C-alpha cells in the first residue's frame, strides 16, 4: 500500500539503569540491534529480562541511560506516531467507540473528515472490526480490544510497530486467531514490526528473526533467523522444522533464565 514507508530501526549500545531502593540496577546493558525495513522481529526472554523496558526505550516513553535509538538513521527522543505501540492491556479509550478509538491519532492531523473516515474504514476492515465500529470498549472481549489497539496504532502509519506482549492475557484459541490476524496485517501493510513476548511458540510463528534476551542485566544472548516460509498458517506449528526451532530457542531462554533464579 502507499503512504509512509516502513523504517529501519537501530539500537546502538543501548543501556538502561534504574535505582531501586537506593541501589543502581542495570536493566539493559549494551544492546546492539538492527531491524531491517519491513522485517518482523520477536524479542523473547524470561520475565525480568527487560523486554518491556526495551520497548519503552524504543517508543521514547523513557530515556536511554547509554547509547542511542535510531530510526531511518536519525536519533529518536520522545514518543511519536512513527513508532506505534500496543500495550498488553490494550489501553483503549473507554469513552470512545471502536471507530473513534481508531480515529484518535488521525484526528490530530490536518486531514479532511472524509480522508479520515476512509482510512478508519480500511483499518476496521483489516482487523475485522467493521461490525463493531459503534461498540463501546466495555462491550468488547479481550481479543476485540487488542484488535482495536492494533488498528489504532496502525492508522497512524508508524514506521515501526511495537507490541508489548499483546496477546499475553488472552486464551489459547483467541491468541492463535490474533497471531494469524497480526501475520496477515503485517503482510498487507508491510510494516517493520518488533514484538516482545515470553511465548516462544508465538515468536517462532510470527517472526523472521528471534532475539533472545538474557536476564540481569538484560543483554542479547542470541539472534536467530527463522527459516520458515513467509506465508504461514497455524498448521506450520506442527511441522518438525517449527518444533525444532521452538525447542532450541526454549532451551536458550531457559539457559539464560536459569542463571537468574536463586539456587535451590
Amino acid at each position, binding site marked *: 500500500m502507499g503512504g509512509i514507508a516502513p523504517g529501519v530501526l537501530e539500537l546502538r549500545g543501548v543501556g538502561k539503569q534504574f535505582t531501586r531502593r537506593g541501589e543502581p540496577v542495570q536493566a539493559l546493558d549494551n544492546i546492539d540491534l538492527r531491524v531491517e525495513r519491513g522485517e518482523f522481529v520477536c524479542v523473547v526472554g524470561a520475565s525480568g529480562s527487560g523486554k518491556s523496558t526495551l520497548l519503552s526505550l524504543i517508543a521514547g*516513553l523513557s530515556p536511554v541511560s547509554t547509547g542511542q535509538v535510531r530510526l531511518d538513521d536519525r536519533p529518536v527522543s520522545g514518543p*511519536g506516531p512513527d513508532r506505534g*505501540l500496543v*500495550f498488553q492491556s490494550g489501553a483503549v479509550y473507554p469513552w470512545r467507540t471502536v471507530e473513534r478509538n481508531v480515529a*484518535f491519532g488521525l*484526528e*490530530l*492531523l490536518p486531514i479532511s473528515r472524509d480522508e479520515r473516515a476512509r482510512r478508519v474504514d480500511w483499518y476496521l476492515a483489516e482487523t475485522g472490526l467493521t461490525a463493531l465500529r459503534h461498540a463501546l470498549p*466495555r462491550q468488547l472481549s479481550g481479543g476485540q480490544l487488542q484488535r482495536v489497539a492494533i488498528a489504532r*496504532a496502525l492508522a497512524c502509519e508508524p514506521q515501526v510497530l511495537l507490541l508489548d506482549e499483546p496477546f499475553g492475557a488472552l486464551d489459547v484459541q483467541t491468541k492463535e486467531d490474533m497471531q494469524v490476524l497480526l501475520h496477515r496485517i503485517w503482510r498487507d501493510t508491510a510494516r517493520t514490526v518488533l514484538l516482545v513476548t515470553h511465548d516462544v511458540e508465538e515468536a517462532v510463528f510470527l517472526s523472521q528473526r528471534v532475539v533472545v534476551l538474557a536476564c540481569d542485566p538484560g543483554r542479547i544472548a542470541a539472534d536467530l533467523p527463522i527459516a520458515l516460509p513467509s506465508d504461514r498458517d497455524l498448521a506450520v506449528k506442527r511441522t518438525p522444522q517449527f518444533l525444532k526451532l521452538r525447542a532450541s530457542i526454549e532451551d536458550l531462554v531457559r539457559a539464560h533464565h536459569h542463571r537468574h533464579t536463586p539456587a535451590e
Partner: protein
Amino acid sequence: MSTDTDAAAVTTGARAGWAALPRRRPPRRVPSVLAIRSPISRRARWILITLSVLVPAVAWVALSGSRTVEPRFLPSPRAVWLAGVEMARSGQLFTDGWASIQRVLWGFGLAVVVSVPLGILMGTFRAAQSLLEPVIGLLRYLPASAFIPLLILWLGLGEPSKIAILFIGTVFFNTLMTADVVRQVPKSLIDVSYTLGARRGEVLRKVVVPHSIPGMIDAMRVNAAAAWNFVVVAELIAANSGLGYRIIRVQRFAQTDRIFAILVIIGLIGLTMDLSLRLLRDWTGRWVA
C-alpha cells in the same frame, strides 16, 4: 500419579507426626439478602426502599399521635404539612426557597469554576500538586463559619459575603476530590496517547478530562450537599429571606412545625439536585465498566 503413593507421601516424611487439621462446622446458610455482595431480587430491593421511608414515617405518626413526645418538640406530620401549606400560600416559602437556591447556585457554582481547573492541574502535574496541596489541605480544615466576621469586614453585609461562605465551605474539598479523580487516569492511557502523536495539551483535553468527567460529577454531588449544609450559616449574615434565615426566625417562637416543614423542603431540594447530577453522570458516563 497413583493415589496410593499420594497417601503414602502424606504419612511419611516431615509431615508424619502432624495431627489431622480440625475442621470447623460449615457456617449456617445465610439468606441471599444478607450475604456479602450477593445481588438481591428486584422485589426485595423495592421492599427495602419502601421500608426505609415507611418505618420512620410510621414511627413519626405513632410518636406524635401518642404524645410520647411533647408536640412542641415533635410536631405531627399533619401539623408540618399545614405549616408548609401556609408558608406556600403566603408565598414566603417560594421567596425563601428561591433566595437560598440562588445563593447555593452562585456559591457552589463559583466553587466548581475554581476547583475543577485547579483539581485537574493538581491531578495531572506533580509540580502543581506539590505547590497547592499543602495550602489547600490546610485551608480545608478552617470552618467556614469562623470566617463570618472577616467576610463581613471584607465584603459587607450583602449577598457577596453569603456566597463567599458557601464558596469557602466547598471549594477546597471539591479541588482535592477532583484532583484524586484525575490522578486515577491510567498511565498507560496517557502513554499510548503520546505514541499516537498527541501533544501535552491534547492529552489533557482529549484523554485526561474525558476520563475524569464521571468522577468529577460524583465529587460535585457530594459537595453540593455540603453547600446546603452551609446555607443556615451563610444566612446568619444579615439575611432578609432564605430557608436558613426562616428557620432562625421561626425558632424564636418555637414554631417547630414550621422548622420541620422547612427542613423537609431543604431535603427535597437537595434530593432534586442530587438526582439531576446523578442523571448527568449517568448520561456522560455510559462508558464506565
